């Protein structure tokens, strides 16, 4: 499956070159700086909404939560109100834990065969930990970028930046989230190529977003700490985009456009890919339903009548044997035989 990540890597390199070179062509800055980002955002929002609506157009015919704890039954048995929710409150908490802390992944175990015919299941925290770091650092990085899209910059952002950069290493101050993101992406990539089973199941569409996000984080870090982008110019440009008065600022540099292009590609790619798990998790019927299947009737909108074997048909077939065995019947044997009926006693 090596072609999977080779092709993905090549794709990201091609995207890099496209933006790097393309922006220098006449009209390149407008194309990569204005047209593509707007287009990408429109595709992202519409594509995302469309996909979710498409999911919503299929009903959830049965209430099928995966119950991960004790049900609510007898009053003296303590139920697991979150892992096996018996009401909306429990479902909400379950979903929050799932979305914000990757609750299910936290359970992850690693199975190993041991000598002496033993199998062990050890708690495997790394995938959970790095996934958590990945998603959180990505979110923080994204959130921090609001400083380029708001004026005046809300105070909470400055607080977040202070926290993120509290180590005060180097100048401009090192933001932990950026490093964490790069580290987590690297981990997620390495486990894909180093763990044989995970490598076996990985597709090009698994590597591509990883490379792309790596590219985004890398170009971002490059600009902040190394090549030094004209930050006021960059913000003037991004503010132009969000106030719908786009204009090109001179001298922000090619790396900036590469960064912007990578983000645009990620946005446009998002609705058509596995990245839609962002929306999908909220729609997952094994997680977002309360385990009240026997308490409240769940209605299946397409429930249709089916052919069943009725009791009458059953009795018709077995009546004689049933009577013989002393089982009660609805109808006695039909006096089909014209002979005089036997009288009892």
């Amino acid at each position: 499956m090596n072609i999977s990540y080779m092709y993905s890597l090549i794709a990201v390199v091609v995207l890099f070159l496209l933006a790097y070179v393309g922006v220098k062509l006449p009209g390149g800055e407008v194309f990569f700086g204005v047209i593509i980002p707007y287009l990408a955002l429109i595709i992202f929002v519409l594509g995302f909404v469309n996909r979710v609506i498409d999911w919503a157009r299929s009903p959830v015919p049965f209430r099928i939560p995966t119950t991960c704890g004790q049900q609510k039954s007898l009053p003296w048995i303590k139920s697991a109100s979150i892992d096996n929710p018996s009401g909306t409150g429990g479902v909400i908490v379950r979903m929050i834990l799932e979305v914000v802390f990757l609750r299910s992944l936290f359970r992850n175990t690693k199975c190993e065969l041991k000598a002496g015919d033993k199998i062990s299941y050890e708690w495997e925290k790394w995938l959970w930990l790095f996934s958590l770091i990945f998603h959180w650092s990505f979110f923080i990085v994204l959130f921090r970028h609001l400083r380029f899209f708001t004026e005046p910059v809300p105070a909470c952002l400055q607080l977040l930046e202070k926290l993120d950069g509290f180590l005060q290493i180097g100048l401009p101050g090192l933001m932990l989230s950026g490093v964490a993101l790069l580290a987590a992406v690297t981990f997620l990539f390495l486990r894909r190529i180093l763990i044989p089973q995970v490598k076996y199941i990985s597709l090009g569409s698994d590597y591509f977003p990883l490379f792309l996000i790596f590219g985004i984080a890398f170009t971002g870090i490059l600009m902040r700490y190394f090549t030094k982008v004209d930050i006021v110019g960059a913000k003037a440009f991004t503010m132009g985009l969000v106030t719908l008065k786009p204009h090109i600022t001179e001298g922000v540099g090619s790396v900036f456009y590469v960064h912007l292009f990578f983000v645009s590609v990620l946005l446009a790619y998002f609705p058509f890919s596995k990245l839609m798990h962002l929306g999908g998790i909220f729609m997952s019927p094994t997680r977002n339903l309360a385990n009240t299947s026997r308490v409240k009737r769940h209605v299946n909108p397409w429930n249709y009548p089916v052919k069943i074997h009725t009791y009458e048909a059953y009795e018709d077939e077995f009546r004689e044997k049933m009577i013989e065995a002393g089982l009660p019947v609805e109808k006695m044997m039909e006096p089909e035989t014209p002979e005089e009926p036997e009288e009892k006693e």
Partner: protein
Amino acid sequence: MPNNKKMYDKGKVVAGLCIFVVLITFPFWFNLGKAAPVPEPKLSDKAKAAKECVMPKAYMKAEHMQILNEWRDTVVRDAKRIYTNPSGKKFNMSLSNTCLDCHTEKAEFCDACHNYASVTPYCWDCHIDPKEAK
């Protein structure tokens, strides 16, 4: 995609999508109706007269924090106070006495850009703007 098909759990799904769209488009409506002029750091007359800073303008724009950092370390750790730039000109390495001597208006020179880009340098944790102090 079939368009005339019914949505199930419509209320919840639409509400969720609305929240999503509102969050995603936050910058667009946050900045609605606000003028967001790009700040232009104001040079004092003295600075204008000096024509050139410690280093060329473009370099200063991108790397001024590095220079300040370097200055601080040299002064504090090596007790050296004189900086010679590539063209041989000598400067006293001091934020308050050298930098602010020319760039007299901190608010108009430093803060204008820093605030715009939401940068909070920790220079002013220790140093004071002599003007503000008065």
